[in-house]
């Protein structure tokens, strides 16, 4: 028993290192002076800290704007996909309706088409609608991409809350909406957090569609992808840090809801 425990703990440490070491190295490089990057052997401890690389990076054109665009689009995508996905997931979990199976498969079909195939006609349509090169346009695309997982994750979570609990709430005086808010939602929070996390990261990472649908209002990854290839090495590390950091902050915020999943909250 204790032997197995050790193996599991060792694996945990290894996986954590696998995730954390690159982030550490990028952070280190981004926050070190440019000269120290060329030193040999490369110092692995923060010996020559300097904000110089980061400040130059942040001052260069399009970076701050891209960051703001990315965060705006990411958060709007989370809100919009939850606004549409939660009711859909609830309906899938609670009601039997004609064509339910086909609907579920249809959901996944949106992910069957490569974004390239979608983006060009979308770009064309958005040009006509005046949505081209706006954060709204990209938000719509990302919401469409995120919805299938949002719906499937939340419907699985709603299935975990027995319908009798909602019925009990209604017997004791709650309207269907109040029953949902006071009984189902608190228990579904971990799942909703997980799907929000997933959506945000998806939106944050999605480059291709965002590049095609925008010109001036690039998201940060799209912006960086266009420019970093021609930038000096130090800048690439700074860009990497800028890409990782907001996602990490978002995960840190959502994490405590996620952890509830194994706590006392869910049965």
């Amino acid at each position, binding site marked *: 028993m204790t032997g197995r425990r050790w193996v599991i703990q060792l694996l945990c440490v290894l996986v954590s290192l696998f995730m954390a070491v690159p982030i550490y190295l990028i952070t280190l490089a981004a926050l070190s002076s440019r000269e120290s990057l060329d030193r040999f052997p490369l110092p692995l401890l923060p010996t020559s800290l300097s904000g110089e690389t980061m400040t130059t990076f942040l001052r260069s054109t399009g970076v701050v704007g891209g960051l703001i665009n990315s965060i705006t689009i990411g958060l709007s995508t989370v809100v919009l996909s939850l606004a549409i996905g939660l009711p859909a997931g609830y309906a899938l979990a609670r009601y039997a309706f004609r064509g339910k199976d086909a609907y579920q498969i249809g959901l996944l079909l949106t992910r069957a088409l490569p974004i390239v195939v979608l983006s060009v006609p979308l770009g064309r349509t958005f040009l006509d609608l005046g949505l081209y090169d706006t954060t709204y346009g990209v938000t719509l695309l990302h919401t469409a991409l995120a919805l299938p997982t949002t719906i499937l994750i939340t419907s699985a979570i709603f299935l975990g809350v*027995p319908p*009798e*609990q909602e*019925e*009990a*709430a*209604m*017997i*004791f*005086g*709650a*309207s269907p909406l*109040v029953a949902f808010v006071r*009984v189902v939602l*608190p*228990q579904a929070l971990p799942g909703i957090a997980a799907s929000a996390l997933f959506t945000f990261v998806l939106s944050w990472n999605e480059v291709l569609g965002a590049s095609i649908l925008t010109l001036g209002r690039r998201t940060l990854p799209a912006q960086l992808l266009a420019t970093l290839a021609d930038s000096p090495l130090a800048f690439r590390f700074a860009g990497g840090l800028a890409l990782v950091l907001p996602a990490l902050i978002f995960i840190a915020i959502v994490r405590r809801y996620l952890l509830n999943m194994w706590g*006392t*909250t*869910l*049965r």
Partner: protein
Amino acid sequence: MNVTVKNLVKTYPSGNRRATDDISLTVEDGEFLVLVGPSGCGKTTLLRMVAGLETPDSGTVTIGGRDVTALPARERGLSMVFQSYAIFPHLKVRQNIGFGLTMRKVPRAEWDSRVRRAAELLDLGDYLDRYPAQLSGGQRQRVAVARAIAVDADVLLMDEPLSNLDALLRMQFRAELKKIVARLGTTTLYVTHDQAEAMSLGDRVAVLRDGRIDQLGTPMAVYSRPASQFVGGFLGAPPMNFFPATVSSGRLQVGDVSFPGGPSGWEDRKVLVGIRAEAIGVSADIPGTVEVAEPTGATTLLTVRWAGGELKVQTAAGFEGSEVGLSFPPAALRFFDPDTSLALH
């Protein structure tokens, strides 16, 4: 407040027969009425229609003279205990018990005292600040009952509240439940598939089969004078004995054995005879062979083979022997039409 259902019909989209088939029933004010029947007989559907959790295809539900058929559950002024408890895992016991009071916006001080009173009635005083996950199954069931009585509703509905408890706990809690409900005097509609529970709890018992009420009456009336072969076989442990006989001049002929008894006006016809295990005598003249003798402590249950087939006979503790002389007291005999299996009067 009394509860009246009239001509309730409900068909589920998936099923091709009616879950409840034109059921009419009145629960009197303060009465404890038990709906009992095998699974799929429509008893839970009936309860859920009274609760407002299902919509009947036709018929009406009236509570205290008010037609509530079209009202949602929350406006019917009733309270319910669910089979699966359905207590809220994310709320502490205190908030669970007080949920109905919170919904009714009861002022804080009264909220506290009513929650405390309900908790004390069910011995939950020490557990108010725990989460349901930290309670045993029996304690969770107590929370569900406390939540139901805290709101002081006019009508209390219970859907197999004891079926998830183990046998010993079920017996204990059954008596306690009877005491609590009697003390509150709430009109209660109680669903169970357990005939012993129905007999011990109900002021009256309604036996359901295939979406219809086969018989409605006091437990003893239903037990001793079943309206059909089904009711006699369903209620009581062991179930009523049945055997076919032929009526001839005030006597019943079974194989080459005959004994006094028989319904009037049924001369020379086949009849189905029913008799309870405890009514059969074992020291008379109709021969029978004891196949199994099961001592249960207070009594001994015999399985006896005789001219009419197999009989369950309940006799005094300490019975020994392999042969018995059976007797069937005429007053204990019940007669059923062999074609319709309904009781003859």
